[in-house]
């Protein structure tokens, strides 16, 4: 009897361990394509509930999907270019914080409702230096579809989005030009004030 229950317990443990293991694999070793598709489906879900959730609700719901799929720290760093080195550690942290908030806020603001939009996966390719580009497009009923290319880099054993190119316009390059220009012309404090203004405006509409 004891033996039998022990056997059961062992089997049970194996099963449990097995599923846990499988689960861990699923979370950790997500391919670039999986990361992108998970994020896109989260985004569509939020859009579907968009009106009901309101801005604050969308922001809360998108917080994790955005930070888990985008490499926000690295993006913030690339976006200020060489100026990064000149910032104090405190400033760097501040920049990463407000930049992350801005990224989530702009998703929450711009993807506010749903009228049958969907993402379609096209293809996946490896770049020369170990990155992956996931090509997809965003279908909008009654309008021209928009090409979305996601650039991902490996982080640990998972992949993270580092740049989004929409119809050939690179978000990273665009932001980088803006941020470095402001840093050079007006300085760090103005940059942070401007970002906060944007976040504030997004939350009002």
């Amino acid at each position: 009897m004891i033996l039998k229950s022990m056997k059961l317990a062992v089997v049970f443990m194996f099963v449990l361990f097995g599923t846990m293991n499988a689960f861990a694999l699923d979370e950790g070793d997500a391919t670039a394509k999986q990361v992108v598709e998970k994020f896109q489906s989260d985004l569509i879900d939020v859009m579907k509930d968009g009106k009901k959730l309101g801005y604050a609700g969308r922001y809360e719901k998108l917080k994790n999907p955005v930070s888990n799929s985008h490499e926000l720290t690295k993006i913030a760093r690339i976006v200020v270019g060489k100026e990064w080195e000149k910032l104090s550690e405190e400033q760097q942290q501040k920049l990463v914080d407000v930049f992350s908030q801005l990224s989530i806020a702009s998703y929450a603001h711009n993807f506010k409702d749903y009228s049958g939009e969907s993402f379609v996966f096209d293809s996946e390719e490896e770049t020369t230096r170990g990155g992956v580009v996931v090509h997809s497009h965003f279908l909008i009923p009654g309008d021209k579809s928009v090409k979305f290319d996601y650039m991902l880099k490996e982080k640990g054993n998972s992949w993270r989005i580092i740049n989004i190119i929409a119809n050939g316009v690179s978000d990273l390059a665009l932001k980088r030009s803006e941020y470095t220009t402001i840093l050079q012309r007006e300085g760090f404090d103005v940059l942070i004030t401007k970002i906060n203004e944007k976040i504030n405006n997004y939350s009002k509409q």
Partner: protein
Amino acid sequence: MNRLHKGNRSVKMQHTFSGLLIVVALTLGGCATTGDVAHQAVVNKTDPYENVNRKIFGFNDSVDNYVAEPVSNAYKWITPQFMQTGVFNFFNNLKNINVVINDVLQAKFSQSVEDTGRLAINSTLGLGGLVDVAKHVGLEQNEEDFDQTLAVWGVPQGSYLVLPILGPSTARGIPGAVFDAAANPVSYIGMPVQLLSMLNARASAEGALKFIDEAALDPYVFTRESFLQWRNNLATDGKAEASFDIDDLEDESLDGDNSAAFSQDSSGDAHTDKPGFALRLDEKTQKIEQVSYSFSSVAQSFDATAKSFEEAGNKLDKLETLKRRR
């Protein structure tokens, strides 16, 4: 919808500049007095006239605030939606004459057949272009213009220029725009139709301009970068992959001091200089390479014209000081 609007915005913005292009050419000619204004410190390779450009950008912005936007809002308020759509379709359809010509000039023959079909269907079944029937048959609107044709022929993009009233362009964009205006029937019709065309352009740009307002930290840089990237993407039909960009950007910011780093700022420029059209074309035939050389000198002379821009900037400065004195 962050990214989405970017695309739409640019497309719509293009309508805004395509209206009055000949006028600009004339205006520019007017400013083209020979002046040797000392070059300012160049921050961005593609935008050597940033100071002047910024002033004109500011000027355009106030014109838009005080004139174009109110008029366009009035137009939108009094015109029923179906009429607005009809007006948009009508002008869009006429633009397809241009698209077909440029398809042929770029040797995109199968696309030119499609676009001719589009023009024919909309002009007949679509009641002279008022209804976009072709869209429902699966013929998508293609974006082709003479600036893209010049790019395909290997003409370098040249400097970024902001034109009074008309907005963003490049040294290559100006002759392109003149050609496009010449090939568009609207240019030859009387004033009321052109006025309607301009109203339509501003009304369609509404969403785009609002998006810039919302998203841009520095509207001038935002407009410049998205304009250049979008034009570059159109000229290469989406084949100019920004894939390499990110690695470069990353290296630059992580490695710290690399003095060559600045040159990469806007991808439009990077592509014409490095893995760009001229290079790609001359791999195929020697002939095209030579053509592109003769064109580059043409572009240079346009660049020289652009220098007179700085003069225009000084004039603007004078205006401002005059205003302040009063």
